[in-house]
């Protein structure tokens, strides 16, 4: 981990080198999974930090996304007299796209940055070296538990986000704008398919996003120069790289899963 690759000159080769290094780091992470089972308590502790502690932001954002979506759709659909379908459209857009994508973006900002900064500071204060000197593998003890925690937390957070968005849609559509409660739910249940929308749409996508965001966050933390400037840059890079990766991966996954 101490040795740093020689820096290539132009941006393209530099990015490719980063992606390559990130890929190799993923292999190291996965190889350390069996060893990290010893640190189950650490994984649970991280799950608390990245999962449970992200609940507030995910729930509040989910609620508002559902509310605004319903408000917009109601006005567009009322032109065609199709307001009864608005609940169903809210549900489909949230399950297929907004749920996993917005959750992942929020997750990168809330949990990814925290993980990068934490590991970066652990490196800067020699805590990672100290673990190595105490014969504790820092990849198995620090990196893998955070990676696994992100992997587990993301699908769960996505589900919470979707539920809150539907609730927000219901609040605006049924309670405020007066769509019939029965129509709202029956249209939704008729059109939402468990396999395409819930399993492929929410769970599979958010699992992939969780893996990518956690990998980037942990990788940036481990490879940052151990200075305050280095940690600042690494945190920024986590958000930028995660956002690009999430949106690009979303397109690829949608193309394959639809």
């Amino acid at each position: 981990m101490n040795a740093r690759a020689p820096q290539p000159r132009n941006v393209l080769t530099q990015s490719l080198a980063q992606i390559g290094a990130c890929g190799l780091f993923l292999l190291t992470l996965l190889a350390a999974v069996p060893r990290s089972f010893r640190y189950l308590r650490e994984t649970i502790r991280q799950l608390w930090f990245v999962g449970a502690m992200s609940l507030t932001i995910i729930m509040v954002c989910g609620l508002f996304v559902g509310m605004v979506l319903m408000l917009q759709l109601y006005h567009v659909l009322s032109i065609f007299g199709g307001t009864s379908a608005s609940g169903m459209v809210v549900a489909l857009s949230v399950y297929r796209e907004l749920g996993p994508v917005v959750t992942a973006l929020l997750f990168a900002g809330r949990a990814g940055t925290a993980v990068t900064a934490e590991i970066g500071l652990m490196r800067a204060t020699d805590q990672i070296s100290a673990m190595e000197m105490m014969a504790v593998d820092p990849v198995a003890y620090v990196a893998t538990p955070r990676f696994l925690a992100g992997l587990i937390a993301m699908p769960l957070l996505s589900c919470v986000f979707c539920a809150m968005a539907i609730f927000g849609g219901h609040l605006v559509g049924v309670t405020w704008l007066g769509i019939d409660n029965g129509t709202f739910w029956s249209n939704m249940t008729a059109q939402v398919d468990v396999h395409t929308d819930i399993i492929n749409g929410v769970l599979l996508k958010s699992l992939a996003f969780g893996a990518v965001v956690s990998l980037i966050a942990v990788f940036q933390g481990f490879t940052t120069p151990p200075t305050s400037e280095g940690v600042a840059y690494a945190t920024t890079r986590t958000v930028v790289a995660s956002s690009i990766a999430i949106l690009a991966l979303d397109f690829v996954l949608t193309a394959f899963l639809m």
Partner: protein
Amino acid sequence: MTETVRATPDDATLVRIRGLTTVLGGKTIFDALDLDIPRGKITSIMGPSGTGKTTLLKHITGQMYADAGSIHVDGRNVAELSRDELYKLREGVGYLFQNSALLTDFDVFENVAFPLRQHTRLPEVLIRNLVLMKLQAVGLRGAARLMPNELSGGMARRVALARAIVFDPQLILYDEPFVGLDPVALNQVIKLILTLNRTLGITSVVVSHELAAVQRIADHVVLLSNGKVVAQGDPATIADDGSPWTRQFFGGEADGPIPFRYPAGDYATELGFAGAAK
């Protein structure tokens, strides 16, 4: 956990370094360095800042590998050990980091207990007693429940020392243990290093450039400069060996064999006066 059966029990040398060569970023840190660290003694490695004293400790513990040469610790070549063997070796080596490197998530007690919890399945009551014994040895049993950010620099270093000796290592490496301590804390650390060496026979390597402190504890002093051993011997007499290098280092003269100026090109040329000089 310390191995009682040693590969070469009669060998008076615990760490044997031969032909060590390291180049970092184009700069030669070690140039075919040969060095022996005697078993059961306190060896002090001195030298100006940037001579690679910390790098040497990292080589000995396998945190960093040299470009050439070999390091044998207790008869085993560090560079040839597998990951598991290296970790096994490190369990018998204590390392005191310059900035203590305590785990900030845990309190003092858990920091000292950390290696025990990771490598053993001892009952909780035994872990508790072992940790309290080590904390008592460094005089901080009463601070067991403080967090690392509540400790002064000297206390943090003593906690780190308690953590380093929790497995009763045969070798402790101290990286600049005297830096940034007030006179009282300095004497406490000196006393601890001496006690650990004299009572438990732990081989100690102290990297430092504070002569007064080193003279009080070291059995053997090694001076490094420009990647080589420039002098070694008894701490009381080493300052008087007559070489210009030791005279400058211990006399604290600003210029001499250790140059005041970092190597640079011609001064007049750089200022644009090259023509005028002719």
